[in-house]
């Protein structure tokens, strides 16, 4: 299994179809038809989202994207929201394609329309314009009737809602006009009438104008006095309330001061206990460090304002108990102070064009690179624990759990003879691979050193030949029908080559003399040719 997957994946050298991804390809054949020719090339690699586009997810995304609030947010946040909901990149791109590109006029118009719901006329005009504008770009989009229907449906929804709001606003205005104002008017009239009636009566009883005027003046004065009294009372009440509020605030302030004092006391107590716990070195640094320079505080203020916000984000959802000194430092930084133990350090390279020294050790092959064949390699373990760990406890070796890889141990020497040991033992692994690993590390940048191992050895040669033969025999039959003699000899030659390849892979490359490496490297080419022929 491991060998098969390792042998199959070598994308840039040979564009062979990946057996691991083939199940994905066959089950998700729709994706290839929808995605186009370009996506077929990508699907050769396993590391691609090769699922078909789900229409309902795309529609949900379209609904989300056309929401007016969403339109205000930056594109990348919208994308991230959809990604977190589990949509693939293709689905997200399709949704973005379906949502019409919002022009600045339309967006501003839409936002004003949604905000000013009360003004009936203007809003209806705007809304009538907006659907027209949106309908035009939507009709040009290649999406089906469904999306346009969805859009109109959505717009009628919004239309209805705003209409309802406007109607209710208008209704309240009308009610106000029709019911309350008349009441006010009648009330005022009533008061006026009463006064007039009184006056008439007085005129009837007392004909003199002066008396009437005096009486009216008295009434007015009395009313004014009443009003003045009432307003004075109100003022007094307000003043009292103000005073009460002020007292209340003072009390609160006093309580706050007390609480602050208590907190400081607690902090001091904690500091004292902390100081006894802390290591002496740290304490010295903390207490004896030089005082901060005010310049640096100002310079760094922007820096460390932003970082504390970010540094607490990894623990945002469930806050673990932070160490107390951590909280102290956070408080200090948020207040704008700098912790006293920071030094000015110049960590720039003294010579930016300094030549990096040459490596003297060869890179060591990784345990997973060696164990690509399913065989388990066990080495005679002389010393199951590394030498540098003190020889205290006994059985603490790594043999407690199953491994399919190699168990390493220190032999105290330099790693190079270690590597040579491996090379002697690993005959099955291709020589190319061990050579590549044994070479010096300095190569041209991005040069490929990892070479895939050859195909696993064939256990049943008859099966291998049988697998390969039907195609060649069919081809041979066909060609023999067409051309009697000419075609047969080259095909026979190819057959012979096929048998030879099978034998080579069986033997693991040992049988072939001399050019063992070259034959192995050419088997991949021959396999390519074989595919072209078959």
């Amino acid at each position, binding site marked *: 299994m491991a060998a098969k997957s390792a042998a199959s994946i070598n994308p840039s050298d040979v564009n062979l179809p990946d057996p691991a991804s083939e199940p994905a390809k066959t089950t998700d054949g729709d994706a290839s038809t929808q995605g186009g020719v370009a996506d077929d090339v990508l699907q050769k690699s396993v590391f691609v989202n090769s699922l078909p586009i789900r229409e309902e997810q795309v529609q949900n995304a379209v609904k989300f994207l056309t929401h007016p609030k969403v339109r205000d947010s930056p594109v990348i946040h919208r994308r*991230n929201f959809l990604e977190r909901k589990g949509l693939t990149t293709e689905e997200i791109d399709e949704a973005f394609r379906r949502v019409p590109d919002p022009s600045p006029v339309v967006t501003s118009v839409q936002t004003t329309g949604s905000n000013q719901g009360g003004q009936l006329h203007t809003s209806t005009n705007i809304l009538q314009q907006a659907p027209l504008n949106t309908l035009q770009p939507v009709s040009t989009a290649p999406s089906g009737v469904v999306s346009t229907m969805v859009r109109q449906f959505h717009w009628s929804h919004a239309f209805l809602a705003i209409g309802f709001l406007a109607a209710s606003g208008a209704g309240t205005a009308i009610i106000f006009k029709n019911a309350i104002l008349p009441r006010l008017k009648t009330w005022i009239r009533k008061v006026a009438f009463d006064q007039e009636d009184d006056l008439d009566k007085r005129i009837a009883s007392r004909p003199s104008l002066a008396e009437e005027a005096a009486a009216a003046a008295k009434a007015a004065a009395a009313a004014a006095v009443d009003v003045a009294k009432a307003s004075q009372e109100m003022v007094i009440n307000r003043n009292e309330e103000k005073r009460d509020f002020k007292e209340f605030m003072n009390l609160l302030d006093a309580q706050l001061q007390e609480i602050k004092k208590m907190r400081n006391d607690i902090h001091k107590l904690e500091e004292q206990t902390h100081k006894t716990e802390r290591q002496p070195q740290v304490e010295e640094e903390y207490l004896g460090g030089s005082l901060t320079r005010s310049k640096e505080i100002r310079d760094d203020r922007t820096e460390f304002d932003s970082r504390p916000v970010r540094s607490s984000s990894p623990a945002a959802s469930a806050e673990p108990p932070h160490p107390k000194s951590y909280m102290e430092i956070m408080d200090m930084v948020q207040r704008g102070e700098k912790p006293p133990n920071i030094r000015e350090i110049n960590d720039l390279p003294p010579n930016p064009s300094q030549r990096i020294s040459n490596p003297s050790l060869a890179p*060591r092959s990784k345990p997973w690179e060696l164990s690509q064949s399913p065989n388990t390699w066990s080495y005679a373990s002389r010393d199951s624990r590394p030498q540098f760990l003190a020889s205290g406890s006994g059985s603490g070796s790594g043999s407690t759990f199953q491994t399919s890889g190699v168990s390493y141990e220190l032999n105290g020497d330099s790693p190079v003879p270690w590597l040579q040991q491996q090379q002697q033992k690993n005959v099955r692994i291709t020589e190319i691979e061990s050579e590549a690993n044994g070479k010096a590390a300095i190569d041209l940048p991005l040069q490929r050193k990892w070479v895939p191992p050859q195909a696993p050895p064939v256990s049943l040669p008859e099966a291998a030949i049988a697998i390969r033969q039907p195609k060649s025999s069919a081809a041979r039959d066909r060609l023999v029908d067409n051309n009697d003699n000419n075609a047969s000899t080259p095909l026979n030659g190819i057959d012979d080559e096929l048998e030879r390849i099978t034998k080579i892979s069986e033997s693991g490359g040992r049988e072939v003399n001399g050019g063992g490496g070259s034959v192995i490297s050419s088997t991949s080419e021959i396999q390519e040719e074989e595919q072209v022929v078959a």
Partner: protein
Amino acid sequence: MPVFKTPFNGYSVKFSPFYENRLAVATAQNFGILGNGRLHVLDLSPSPSPVTEFAAFDTADGVYDLAWSESHENLLVAAVADGSLKLYDLSLPPQSNPVRSLHEHSREVHSADWNPSRRDSFLSSSWDDTVKLWTTDRPASLRTFSEHSYCVYSASWNPRHPDVFASASGDCTVRVWDVREHGSTMLIPAHQHEILSCDWNKYDDCCIVTASVDKTVRVWDVRNFRVPVAVLNGHSYAVRKVRCSPHSRNLIMSCSYDMSVCLWNYMIEDALIERYDHHTEFAVGIDMSVLVEGLLASTGWDELVYVWQHGTDPRAP
């Protein structure tokens, strides 16, 4: 068991791919909020003292991660909180170091990963939402991958496909990229919360493991990425880092803000096989040695680095 006390809070620990007894630790002052950083290179020896410091390099800002070169035994790169990557050559004297400073990211560089197949290139992932590809011979990045909408916390090369890597981001997605392609080739909405770490299975090239703020570690098959292969519960706070074993197909190591380091076998029913509670603050960095099977290392905000063999007690003297 070797224990090393660092002056600053630990952030990452990695074994050298060349020397069985060498490892490097990335640390940052004041929990990495604001302060200097230091990169330690430690050597393990049987006696007299189990851990000695081979070299230490100070940086102006905290070091969040490091990566050893796969082609050069003395070269390592540090991911610094000021957005730069610093290359150090251990064969040169300390005053000649760093040999390079690559500054292109506009925010903190959260992780660095060296390509184990090609051996000449490495990735840096940053809080500026991008991942950059670098080689040691060029002063500028080769590629910038920017599709994430939030901090990229981790990028990891596929050990069997030299041009494929995965990135884990705070936008709750994992993206699989191919260096030869223009954009990402695959998108996995792996969690409902931020994803802090990802790593490929060394023995199954389609298997990827993710760790998230939602306290779970999930195992995914990229061929069927809608449903995880396994969901590993056991941590009580966010899982900070996850590593697949270089020696065993089913073994996963994880560390969490619950201060524990756990070992899992995701193919069995009761996946949690080992739990270590040696740290007294957040456990933030872990590594499994490629050269020595079963050798584990961890570091945390309690300023301690532990190295121990699987199955033993890290705090045993």
